[in-house]
């Protein structure tokens, strides 16, 4: 991967993380504020906030896979794909575990 591509990947990841963490914080803050005033919509905002929070690192991994593939850096494309597969496995474990 070339030096400009590394800098670009860092910038894109920075944006993904910032947008994700800001969106989830807004959702969680709204949810908590609505909870304190007793509004029924609070749990919806809280759930959205949690889901966006959990999705942010996943989005960062997906973006990395795309960038490495565009740069034809196959070693790192495969490595990040393995990380994504592990995150998918944890989602499967979460769903399977619920049935126990």
């Amino acid at each position, binding site marked *: 991967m070339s030096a400009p591509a*590394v*800098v670009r*990947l*860092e*910038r894109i*990841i*920075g*944006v993904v*993380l*910032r947008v*994700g*963490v800001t969106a*989830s*914080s807004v959702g*969680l*803050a709204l*949810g*908590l504020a609505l*909870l*304190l005033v007793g509004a029924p919509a*609070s*749990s919806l905002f*809280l*759930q959205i*906030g*949690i889901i966006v*929070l*959990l999705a*942010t*690192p*996943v989005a*960062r*991994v997906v973006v*990395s896979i795309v960038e490495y593939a565009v740069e034809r850096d196959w070693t*790192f494309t495969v*490595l*990040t794909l*393995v*990380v994504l597969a*592990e*995150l998918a*496995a*944890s*989602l499967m*474990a*979460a*769903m399977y*575990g*619920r049935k126990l």
Partner: protein
Amino acid sequence: MPIVTATLALIIFAAGVLAGSLGALLGIGGGIFLVPFLNIGLNLPLQAAAAISLTTVIATSSSVSAGRAGKQVINMRLGMVLEVATAAGSLLGGVTAQMLPQSALQMLFGVMSAIVAVIMLSRLGRRNVILDPTVEPGLLGGRFHEHESGGTVTYRVKRLPVALVASFLAGQVSSLLGVGGGVIKVPVLNAWCGIPMRAAAATSAFMIGVTATAGAVIYYGHGLLVPELAAAAVLGVQLGSWGGMHFGARASAKWLKVLMAGVLVVVSVLMFGRGIR
């Protein structure tokens, strides 16, 4: 599961501010302080405490790394390689969390963090950096500008298998106890793998988002995550880590190591004490 009240949410928010600032300062996430407080201080079940803590670890990782991205202090290539190991450990830890006796794991954690503290303190004088900027960092090494010395720090990664094993263990501990796992990774990367403290802490902080997500998803799916309390903790930690980041930029690496060793001793005593009870 605990009953959610405004007072409880407020206490957790305040605890989050403190944990977040300390976590950002040390590059290990706030979990290491939050879990004992929620479990011992507020009497929350360990699993609920771990689940809340994991969400704050994700938030800390995302916000701290967003601020550092583009400054080259995060070694993203190394981070991505080690994430393969941490995510695997985290997945295994999340799945086995209900099968293994918790007391044995807490005692193991106590012993391990005590050992790491000793390693840290015995290697205070070592810098593990090559100050010659013309040195080739290799495939996984890195190069960044250090404010303290005013120079460019270049380093190569040594003993990658050791880093992978430490990352796998860190991932497991992360899911089982709800911490970021940086307490294991950072000292090992610094002491044995030739990575400067600043880069080790930044890379670890970057990785723990993915590590904690693999564990948090499992807790969330099992209904062990209380969204109201997680929200209070996440918002508190966000505020705290913002403050800690500003202060952390001026803290010296040596002071950071001493502080971190002290933290490890406290964590060791707390975890071991809980394990033998």
